């Protein structure tokens, strides 16, 4: 663009150019998506809301502790399961309360990353604005509802390393048959990580 400056300018050329560009654009289609009628197509990784798969949660508190602004509230109590035939009694954590305060949440995704039991997921849903900020505190039933909107994760780039979930699965359960691995496994076929 430095040569632009060197060229002697015709006075008014810049103004004319601006007028021309705007007029050209006037005749073009606009790019606006009419939001409430047309929903945005969000990618699977989009960080809209956090969904909780309650069944997987062991109330280990890792997410609550790792959260940078401590917006996850967990209450739980221990329950003792009666001893099965010839066995011992077992203690189990029962989740009483799991709440995320989305008015505090910074949407960093650390809780999801640290969850060792795959109980937390991102969903691209974003339409949960409220008139009262207190309503942004989602309790576990509401977080569970988000689960229905969680999309399957995208296939990985074929030239990436095979995800550790697949390598561990292969180690423990033998080689996965093609097609049986579901979405996650799609990348490994092309990638030929072996």
């Amino acid at each position, binding site marked *: 663009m430095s040569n632009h400056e060197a060229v002697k300018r015709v006075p008014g050329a810049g103004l004319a150019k601006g007028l021309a560009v705007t007029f050209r*654009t*006037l005749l073009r289609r*606009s790019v*606006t998506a009419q939001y409430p009628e047309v929903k945005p197509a969000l990618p699977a990784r989009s960080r809209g809301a956090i969904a909780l798969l309650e069944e997987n949660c062991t109330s280990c508190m890792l997410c609550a502790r790792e959260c940078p602004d401590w917006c996850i509230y967990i209450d739980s109590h221990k329950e003792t399961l009666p001893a099965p035939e010839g066995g011992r009694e077992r203690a189990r954590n029962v989740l009483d309360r799991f709440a995320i305060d989305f008015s505090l949440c910074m949407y960093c995704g650390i809780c999801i990353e640290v969850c060792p039991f795959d109980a937390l997921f991102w969903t691209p849903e974003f339409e949960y604005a409220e008139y009262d900020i207190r309503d942004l505190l989602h309790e576990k039933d509401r977080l569970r509802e988000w689960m229905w909107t969680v999309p399957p994760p995208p296939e990985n780039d074929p030239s990436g390393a095979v995800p550790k979930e697949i390598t561990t699965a292969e180690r423990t359960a033998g080689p996965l048959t093609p097609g049986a691995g579901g979405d996650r496994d799609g990348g490994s076929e092309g990638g030929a990580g072996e």
Partner: protein
Amino acid sequence: MSTHVLAAEDLSGFGTDPWWLIVIKVLFIFVFLVLSVLLTMWAERRILGRMQLRLGPNRHGPFGLLQGLADGLKLGVKEDLVPKNVDKWVYILAPAAASAPAFISFAIMPFGPQVSIFGHQTHLQLTDLPVAVLLVLAMASMGVYGFVLAGWASGSPFALLGGLRSSAQVISYEIAMALTFVAVFLYAGTLSTSGIVDAQERLWFAVVLIPSFLIYMVTMVGETNRIPFDLPEGEGELVGGYHTEYSSMKFAMFFLAEYVNMSTVCGLSVTLFLGGWRAPAPISTIWPDANTGWWPMLWFIAKFAMVMFIFIWLRAAMPRVRYDQLMKLGWKVLIPVSIVWIIVVATMRALRNAEATTTTWLVVVGAGLAAALVALYLWDRAAEKRREAKETAKEQEFATLKAKPTAGGFPVPPLRAAHYGSAVRDALEAPRPERGTSAKEVTGA
């Protein structure tokens, strides 16, 4: 001159309307202006939207046509804040003072020729005066009071600066604007708007008087405080300018004034330069009846809309000029060019009136051309010299920079430099002008 006589005769058709017709006309003008404001706002936002890859308002009514109405209602029911230390009377008076004169100008705008309304032959124009165009200028000057008073009464620096800018701008652009009218008057031989429209029966003044027309286009933007000349309300600098402290209906009045002013200058440009209500050339040649009856109203509105579009288009494409640049353009370019052009027009008219021979024409035109060429040559020489001087200055600067090894590398700041009040610097380097100006100098080089 024959045109004079004609114009004087024309005006006899005015001022004879019965009272009910006058009321109808006044109402029509009012409704026309209010509607044009609403529609212009809508069109502006839609067109701007499309020029910016957006859609613009499209929710209220078909195509969002009722958006302006919704906005008006919203403004009306908003809280009317009056800051504590305003000059209350003036503060309340200012919006009215700004918007009332804007409406008056349209009284002399000819929408069409004589038509019959309920069996009464009348012009499609509220009234006409021998000095009709001057009325517009006078009203424009009156309108400035609104802005200045608003700026003064608000008691806020932003508003004050906005009001001051507004008055200075409108006054200086009005001079240039009036000068462009002079050329039109010279050609039309009258100041009455209907007379001027009649004078353009064969050829639009926009064609005959191109320089005047172009200057008018610039001044009309300046006069109405629109981008690129919207300094009085340039939100980047002055937040809202003179209407910073206004809210609710009072703000709406300023808004209305701005758009009615736009309508006025658009109507004036159509009347003075674009043939008024007369159909544009291809239509009137094919269809001789185009200029009779009620049709001219359509042509007028079509031309009106076209000029309005230019306003909107400019807004989409231009940034705002700086205040001093605006004044420079007004005083150092537009006014001198206008004056020179008027001299040329006057000479031509005088020659025509004197029924000059071909030789005289040739001599005058030849002399004019020769003078222009000589001036151009001299100017070019001067420009060349300036350029050379600039280049040498630049080379010299580079040479000095090269010779000075202290022009250091990045992480090590030069220890003796024009800053922190370093006393060492003065001892080591030749005295330089003050910091504020030294910066300017470097660019010049």
